[in-house]
């Protein structure tokens, strides 16, 4: 049961693609609601056998939101980018709301449990990452977007390249450098 009319989203997307920033603001809460619902569904294994693939998560949202045939490819790519941004916002808001305060903020820092669990990555707190990503956007906006799409949006290199209108190689190079930048920045955060 879709929570909103596909047509409405498609329209907003078109409007945003045509340069109407207000459309984006209308779009965000719609996407957010849908993502919340989806994330919850994943959590509860409502769909047994479904793997926690990030791409699937975002694409799933996309498919539920819009009638793919009605959206030009360019629009789709942009949309996925938006979905990534929304995903980031939802996650960060959740982290904040649950008292996952930044270090020194009174509450204890909670690392991304899953990040340790799954990838052996350093235990970077989500809020720290969010903060560092803002910093990266100031230095190099495209690289920040690449991270947003790849990590928060779960987009593939190809999808990211499409969304940003750059080559696959550029995304790869942006991705690897952005990770180095973020790591070196996160290392310098006060502990």
């Amino acid at each position, binding site marked *: 049961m879709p929570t909103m009319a596909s047509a409405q989203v498609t329209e907003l997307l078109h409007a945003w693609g045509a340069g109407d920033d207000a459309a984006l603001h209308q779009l965000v809460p719609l996407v957010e609601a849908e993502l*919340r*619902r989806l*994330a*919850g*569904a*994943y*959590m*509860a*294994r*409502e769909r*047994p*056998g479904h793997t*926690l*693939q*990030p791409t699937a*998560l*975002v694409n799933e949202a996309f498919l539920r939101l819009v009638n793919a045939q009605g959206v030009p490819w360019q629009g789709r790519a942009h949309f996925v980018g938006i979905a990534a941004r929304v*995903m980031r916002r939802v*996650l960060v808001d*959740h*982290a904040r709301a*649950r008292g*996952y305060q930044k*270090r*020194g903020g009174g509450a*204890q*820092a*909670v*690392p*991304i*449990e*899953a*990040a*340790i*669990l*799954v*990838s*052996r*990555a*350093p*235990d970077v*707190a*989500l809020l720290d990452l969010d903060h560092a990503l803002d910093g990266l956007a100031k*230095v*190099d906006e495209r690289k920040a977007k690449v*991270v947003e799409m790849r*990590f*928060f*949006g*779960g987009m593939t290199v190809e999808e990211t390249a499409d969304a940003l209108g750059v080559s696959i190689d550029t995304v790869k*190079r942006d991705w*690897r*450098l952005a*990770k*180095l930048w*973020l*790591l*070196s920045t996160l*290392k310098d955060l006060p*502990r």
Partner: protein
Amino acid sequence: MSDRADRWRRVEQICQDALDRPVAERAAFLEASCGEDLLLRREVEVLLVEETASSAFLESPTGAVAAAVMGPGSARLSGHRVGVFDVGALLGAGGMGEVYRARDTRLDRDVAIKILPEAFAHDAERVARFQREAKTLASLNHSNIAAVYGLEESAGVTVLVMELVEGEDLSQRIARGPIPHDEALPIAKQMAEALSAAHEHGIIHRDLKPANINVRRDGVVKVLDFGLAKAMEPALASGGHSNNPTITTPAMTQAGMILGTAAYMAPEQARGRPVDKRADVWAFGAVLFEMLTGRRAFDGEDVADVLGAVMRLEPDWGKLPLDVPTPVRTLLQRCLVKEPRERVSDIAAALFVLGHQAGATAPATVQAPPSRRTWWVAALAIGAVLAMAAVAFRGSGPGRPALEPVEFTIAPPAGTSFGGPAAGGTGSAPQLAVSPDGRYVVFVAGARSAFQLWLRPVASADAKLLPGTEGSAFPFWSPDSTDIAFFAGGKLKKIAVAGGPPVTLADARAGRGGSWSRDNVIVFDQVTGAGLFRIPSTGGVPTAVTTLAEGEDAHRWPHFLPDGQHFFYTAVTGPCCPAPRPGVVKIGSINPGEPVATLLQADSSAVYASGYLLFAREQTLMAQPFDPGARATTGDAFPLRERVSTGGNRYISVSASQDGTLAYAPNAAPTEQSLFWFDRSGRTLGTLGESGPNATPSLSPDEGRVALALRTGNPGNLDIWLIDIARNLRSRLTSDARDEGSPVWSPDGTRIVLGSGAFQEARPERALLIQAPVNETAASETLLEAADTPTRPCGPRQCLVTPTDWSSDGRFVLYTFSGGFPATSDIWALPLFGDRQPFPVADTRFGESLGTFSPDGRWIAYVSDETGLPNVYVQPFMRAGGKHRISVNGGRNPHWSGNGKELFYLDADGAMTAVSITTADTVAAGLPETLFPVATLSLNQMFSVTRDGQRFLINARPPNTAGVSPVTVIVNWTSTLEN
């Protein structure tokens, strides 16, 4: 375009290009790209060093992150049916899945179900293993353990079915504040019951924490998730992490490792070592501490911090409320001992203590002492229990103490450590003495140099400072337990336990021990270089009672036998500290003319107690039956305790009362540095024994010997010693009164060049470089006497010359020339041919030091502080060419591997670091690779590396130093021996 954006573009471009190149070529590339712009290079380097870490960074599936962050509160299974289960309310969520209340429609009962993560459910091997574990878990039937019913595969979801436990978990309870001890102890007791039952079945919890402990409204405690941590572990949980420097411990890579778990993890668990039930004992202690204080025993900002606290820090014992009973405090301390072997080894100990404290059911009766073979193991298990019980008996009522062995520990008072005035190699052995009536333990503790006597009644938890005992050492008791004699300020003094100022009895400049006979004669060590003296305990003129035999340097540690006529003492031969040889324990007499008898060889002095001779052999506390009348041993020596502290002066930290109370200090982690062998992963391969704080271990070219400077004598001067590695034998190379240091071997191993110091106040001499033959058949030769330069006076005590390397062709010695005004240091080379005129190699206004030749002699690596921090550089030797910076995060003490392809140094954090390097026409270095951290007292510790670059000889603190062990007191210690 702004400058900043432009700058970033350059950094990015160079960084990207560097990433495209093999590691070995990068340094050269950076050199070429950045030129003299060191800041640019630095900016690139800080990015490049993250390369290894970045491979795993941000690569986790977003969904997993989402699941972790969004957690419960989203849609859930509630209200749905999964297989045979009608799912109800969400009860909780954790790293191992969400837990729901559910109705098992088949069996028609309410259960809790845990939805296992998909990653787990898809791993057939893990599920199979878990099935087996679940069966074992299901066999646990105990009222304090939440039962596991089984694992079910239902509608594609893997579900763990468990007993439904309703109530509040301890973490929620603790969040509201500390739990009063009369409420907390019954909870703890039930936790202990649960652990005890599980341990009997061979099941270890491994993840005991407040969130896993439920307290029902009726007060019944249920421990959840027994054994799940193990059962859910991926088969290949470890491995691969050692290459990732950002992972601090293997345990962090294991599934479900989160902050909430780390805080309760035993140190061995945190290190990824195999664990046994003692890990649960630790966690039990950590939870109990948290209940009583409302604070975690070990806490930190993040996982690494918490694990650091677990492995290195003591809980803040001061946080325990004052009304927590002493036995419980002691129990806590014994549960939270870092070394598993020293920890309470069986939760039954806790059960016993809490049984008494909580006023609950009577504890199981204490079993008869087991066979001698295992008694000390058992003692560790039950000792703590009994100690507390017995102390409580003693403190609370009249009557004789229980006859069971009883054990407890004494920690140094807050802000102090055990020890004593450090002069003369006293070492770290705690100094203690039990009063003859067994009611008190006196010990020496203090901060830094201010050591004083503390009096600890056995029946009380608090030690009392004895005023007026500043600088005191080696206390001993009067036979009636009313006075304590001790050494302070070069005098023998006594002080009444009842109070009053100390009274000086005699001069005693040596002061290595004394003993007070039943006839009020004190025998003591008065001066070095003479035997023992006696004096009436009221004071008077000391008279000699022993005389040094040939070859003996000192007599120490007298200890009267019960007859008051004879005493043990230790005859010391040769210098004590660098090369302790077994001491000889002899029996002397206060009766003139009675011959001295030799009793035994030991690594320490000996004391007599309750029919036994106690002494140390290889740091094991040994006991041997002894007949004081016949003054002879009557049986074989056997180990009493695994470890006991002894000093280099042969002091042994053991004392006993007449009625069977024994106090000893387990061998505390030495705070002094020793020479350790490490492999490239930081594993300790062995030790060559103690060394001074800054001694440079210098490996001989054949790697069979080590030369280093050791301080001997009192106050002592530095001499060069040679250690035969295979036999660990020490021999002295120099023995003059000057300070020698920094030995460097000639390439053929026949000579050593060393620096001869000129900083000793008493010896206003200029610094020298001296060449000493190793085989002693030739005389030493002064190669260089430090001379004034136009800009730098170099008179006595003004500057220093420190040799650092000898070229492989034998033609040049590199040395550091330091001191002067303005103070600086430079690197010079001394040719050993021609006119032998030294010339500067690196002498800028910055400080250069520690030059070392590449094996082919064409390059030198050295340290310069030109960036403000010491860093390692390489530059050509006697050829034109600039210098190349090698280290990124600071660097000291560079060493080349034998093939010249690697440089090793210690970075700013003291971590051993390796850099691959090629030196053809130019220098190209790879990125620094951190090998292992080095524990040290100063950042200037020295090391040597074998030619193959595989083994490091480092003058360091012992690895895994876990702090000072407490003094252990055993009441009725002999009853442990009866079988």
